[in-house]
């Protein structure tokens, strides 16, 4: 299970990063605008369809894992009241649709392209970098955590057993994760410096993402749909 960018050449991968983000954002907002439970369920179906069509159906796995507990929790709470299952259904669908949309966006928008797109619009390098780093932090930590888990299991670490044993296991995993990340901060800073980051020179945009009339039309369309949804929901 990987959270993060998934290489591919689907229509969302090829679209301008802002377009992919607009679509993802549109799905998430729409899920909260439309009336439950039918509206959010339809939006969730739309999100799932988009993920399949964009060739990144794999985002549905982490989406299910992350949102599963919400479903259980919400149904458990609302199960106490009559007529409540429908409310629970609506809320759960909203959560899940937003999670799918978020994972979809980070799966199809490579931070590098997003950065190029932002820089092409005149956003300062540092801000673009922070955004790229923030997007990548989850997959990076995941890879590192996997390597550390492998190493500790080879030393006999068992993740099951008594509570004390489990606490020890978490310590054995978390400490190298944090320490190795900290140890690398200086080296990474040097690496960026030595490659000319922070010189104050205007960076050359190598592959400015192409923003086609279709991209712009889609972004306007997303905005239009949201506007209509607002008018319909709050007449």
């Amino acid at each position: 299970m990987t959270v993060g960018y998934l290489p591919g050449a689907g229509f969302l991968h090829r679209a301008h990063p802002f377009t992919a983000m607009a679509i993802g954002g549109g799905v998430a907002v729409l899920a909260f605008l439309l009336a439950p439970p039918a509206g959010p369920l339809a939006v969730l179906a739309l999100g799932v369809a988009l993920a399949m069509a964009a060739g990144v159906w794999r985002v549905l796995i982490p989406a299910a894992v992350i949102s599963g507990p919400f479903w259980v929790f919400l149904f458990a709470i609302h199960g106490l009241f009559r007529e409540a299952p429908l409310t629970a259904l609506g809320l759960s669908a909203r959560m899940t649709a937003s999670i799918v949309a978020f994972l979809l966006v980070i799966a199809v928008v490579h931070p590098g392209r997003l950065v190029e797109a932002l820089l092409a619009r005149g956003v300062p390098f540092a801000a673009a970098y922070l955004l790229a780093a923030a997007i990548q932090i989850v997959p990076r930590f995941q890879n590192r955590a996997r390597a550390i888990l492998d190493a500790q299991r080879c030393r006999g670490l068992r993740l099951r057993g008594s509570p004390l044993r489990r606490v020890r296991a978490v310590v054995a995993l978390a400490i190298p994760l944090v320490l190795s990340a900290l140890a690398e901060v200086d080296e990474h800073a040097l690496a960026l410096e030595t490659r000319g980051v922070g010189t104050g020179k205007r960076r050359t945009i190598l592959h400015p993402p192409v923003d086609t009339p279709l991209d712009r039309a889609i972004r306007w369309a997303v905005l239009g749909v949201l506007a209509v949804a607002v008018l319909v929901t709050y007449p």
Partner: protein
Amino acid sequence: MTIVFDRVSFTYPGSREPSLHGLSFHAARGQVTLLTGLLGAGCSTTVLVAAGVAPRLLGGSVEGDVTVLERNPGTAEGWRDLAGRVAVLLPTPWTQLSGMTFTVADEVAFGPANLGWDREEILDVAAVAMDQLSVTHLAQRDPATLSGGELQRVILAGLVAMRPDVYLLDEPTVELDPEAADAVYALLPTLAKTAAVLLTTTDSDRAVEVADSALYLESGQLVSAGSPCDVLGSERVVAAGAGVSVATLFRDAGARGPYPVDVAAAASRWMTA
């Protein structure tokens, strides 16, 4: 002189003992200068000080004068003037990815792009650098998926593409297999045509073949300097375990120093005997 150390001492933060003691040397454009010594002798620290990382990022205290291209790399202003002119390669290539690029080709072009060169020129130098480091076939790969050996060559290609005036290389082939390591060492004299190359490595067998001069450190002090053959075949260096393999063989066999540093020299001296 491109790199000048004048009585430089350096102490890491939290440490009582200095790691470098009154170190003086210089390294010139046109030369590969080998910095050698046992682990812990201060070679890597010297690279970090020359790069200005120590003290600028790591903290610690420097005495004496460190001058690289007439600037002090340990100050923020000095480093700003040096940006793009000093390439630093550390032995941990995975910490040196920009984390902002989509393909190896873009990773290699990252440095030149930050320097604001023309797009066409950047694509040209990146292509040449990828070819020099034999990573052209990886051009469209995602850097995050590379092996350690591929990564180390890609990072070096990214530095070469910037056409720096100084290369500071700490174990540049530690992740590479023998063929790839040979190729990188063979490239160093080419890089030195337009730059000063300061190299530190425990692989003195390869380094002796390409270095123009050598500096030997013990406990943060410069003990001997001169031609690589003289330094790496000298009694003191070989006795310490820091000499090249061939010299160590002949010392262990009871020959008298100075020892031969390569097979040809050994053969010419002992073949007839």
